[in-house]
């Protein structure tokens, strides 16, 4: 049952990265769109993610519940040492979630829309940035259980080049996912081209941030190269992700959109697989070589059994309903702006 729970944890994180990521990316694109095109971008993204918006973010809740029920030591350690980035991420989640809903459901359309829009776009950038910082910090070896000053315990645990570059990388990936997603959501050739350019822009951004991550790892003596390329799973994942990336660029160039989404999703999945495979079952690496492991720091057997059953039971209800929701609105997208009247 422990492995069932771990599978659910990994899948929730992946789905949050893919679906929630595309969601964050939609706001990031808005931030990087010229004034004249903002309104169209906003409408397209609204009709694309409106109906599944709330569901996309449930994956985070599922992951957190799995952590605090199944792996309480990991959850509480991260809560203490990463208190500040977690709090900033939370503020981002609050700002984003409410601004998105407010701007759509405000009965009067006036200058308040600018306020909602700016809050939405800025928090869409901040939230994944800090999500990445948290993930980067967990494996960076900067968390020091023996730390005795405020700075070493609560600031240097997360504020360093490696985690910040992982944060930026996450932002670029979200922007990339969202632009690929939106290409298929518009019938207008001009907009489609615009989103394709955005996809290329964020893709290049992701590569640059990727190089930053490796550089920061080198400077901070984090053996990232060995983690990624030191085992056959990592090598295969990186090679196939690269090949699919070339294929995707070719398709983008040709203007074919059918396979774009699965390819983008595949690349992100491979990145997550590579970065998590080498550490498994460890999830938090401490300064000085200690670690917290999913296998050694899990709850007692009965807890894991109950949790596993609850998750299996939940997926029986959730997955079909979620697929039907996505399918229904894919088949016949909303007409932009007409969602509620």
């Amino acid at each position, binding site marked *: 049952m422990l492995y069932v729970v771990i599978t659910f944890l990994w899948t929730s994180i992946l789905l949050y990265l893919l679906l929630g990521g595309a969601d964050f990316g939609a706001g990031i694109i808005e931030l990087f769109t010229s004034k004249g095109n903002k309104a169209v971008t906003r409408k397209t993204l609204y009709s694309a993610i409106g109906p599944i918006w709330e569901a996309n973010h*449930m994956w985070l*809740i599922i992951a957190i519940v799995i952590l605090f029920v199944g792996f309480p030591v990991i959850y509480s350690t991260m809560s203490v040492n990463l208190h500040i980035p977690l709090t900033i991420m939370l503020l981002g989640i609050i700002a984003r979630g409410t601004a998105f809903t407010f701007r759509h459901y405000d009965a009067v359309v006036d200058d308040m829309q600018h306020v909602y829009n700016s809050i939405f776009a800025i928090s869409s950038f901040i939230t994944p940035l800090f999500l990445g910082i948290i993930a980067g910090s967990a494996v960076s070896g900067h968390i020091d259980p023996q730390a005795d000053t405020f700075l070493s315990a609560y600031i240097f645990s997360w504020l360093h080049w490696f985690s910040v570059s992982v944060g930026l990388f996450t932002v670029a990936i979200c922007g990339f996912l969202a632009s690929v997603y939106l290409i298929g959501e518009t019938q207008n050739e001009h907009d489609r081209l615009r989103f394709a350019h955005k996809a290329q822009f964020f893709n290049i951004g992701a590569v640059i941030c990727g190089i930053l991550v490796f550089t920061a790892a080198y400077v901070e003596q984090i053996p990232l190269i060995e983690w990624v390329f030191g085992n056959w799973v990592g090598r295969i994942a990186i090679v196939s992700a690269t090949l699919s990336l070339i294929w995707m660029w070719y398709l983008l160039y040709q203007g074919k959109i059918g396979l774009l989404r699965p390819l983008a999703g595949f690349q992100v999945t491979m990145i997550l697989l590579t970065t998590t495979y080498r550490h498994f079952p460890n999830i938090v690496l401490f300064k000085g070589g200690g670690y917290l492991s999913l296998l050694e720091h899990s*709850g007692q057997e*009965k807890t894991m059994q109950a949790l596993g059953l609850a998750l299996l039971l939940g997926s029986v209800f959730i997955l079909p309903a979620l697929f039907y929701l996505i399918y229904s609105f894919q088949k016949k997208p909303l007409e932009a702006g007409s969602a509620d009247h």
Partner: protein
Amino acid sequence: MNDFIAARSQMALSLGFHIVFSCIGMVMPFFMAVAHYYWLKTDEIVYKNVTKAWSKGVAIFFATGAVSGTVLSFELGLLWPGFMKHAGPIFGMPFSLEGTAFFIEAIALGFFLYGWDRFNKWFHWFTGVIVGVSGLASGILVVAANAWMNSPAGFDHINGQYLNIDPIKAMFNDAWFSQALHMTIAAFVATGFAVAGVHALMILKGKNVLFHTKSFTIAAAFGCVAAILQPLSGDISAKDVAIRQPAKLAAMEAHFHTEKSASLLVGGIPDEEKKEVNYAVKLPGFLSFLAHGDFQSEVTGLDKIAPENHPPVAITHYAFQIMVGMGMAMMLVSVLYFLALWKQKHWLNSPWLLKLFVAATPLGFIAVEAGWTVTEVGRQPWIIYGIMRTADAVTPMPGIAYSFYLFTAVYASLAVIVIFMLYRQIKMVGTLYDKA
């Protein structure tokens, strides 16, 4: 402000904020489903308009409730890591099920809000009902988790270790039923009266009277039925608390001295140093009856409980008085309303009844906040009753006061924006929903 008080204040603030949104998010879908049902059955356009207007309220409240709930799930660890390290695996079962319920609610809401004219009309209606049912289920599950903190079960506490964990037993702890029942009914009372009050005000102002009358009738019916049922569940809760948490009951009633045939106090100002209550109205024997169903029985007072385990008496006592007072007031309004429906039809058209409802608009939520204060403050100094002290669970991180100020600012601005948006929704009823 020290870090411990800051952490408690931030938790209280987050819960106090979330609870309003979750109550409305949990109950409004039922109002919506009733209006929607009338629309499908009668084809009267006003019901469709009411459904649509309410669904916007639900969307706003759901989104705000969902993010504040997400914040709470992180805050459990951010503020109380010592608690979560041990409690997570024990009382996590309702949270894992709640995740499912919440997820279903989000999916159903997607279908409902965006599904107008896209699906079979009864399927569409049904998704609205599912929003309500799954919301209700998640509310009950979260309360079951809180109940465990009041009535820990499903593990053995031996030498500081938490052994033989049984998550199912923990979920069905002794307090889950009475707490969940009381809270669920409270959500219906609070939301019913709040919604009815707003519509009553608009009727009095003579704006879109048909629209607001239909809305008022649905909300008032839910609120009034619940308000009449609530004292029954309150009685179940009181008897339960008397057995499980005598210290909490003693604090609620500012009952300093153990005695037989104890008096029920109405109002009064407790003096914790002199251990007496001034200016209270005493109803002899009624506390014994309330606690144990017998006018002669003995009720444990704070004198039988070690001083270091006393909850803050004054806050708990005032909060309890406020909750009961508000509940009684709403019950009275409900009785008048049903009397009007049943015998005195002409009352329904007289402004005084509507004015009563307008006056009662905030009472339900004041009662809900007061009730939570009783539950949470009355449990102190324990975070897990009798097992772990709240002070031992708090995060070691310094500077929580700043975090508290930050969240206070965020929640205050959110509250202002939501009120501002609701005001705009109501102002626009004539243009958007009631063109005829």
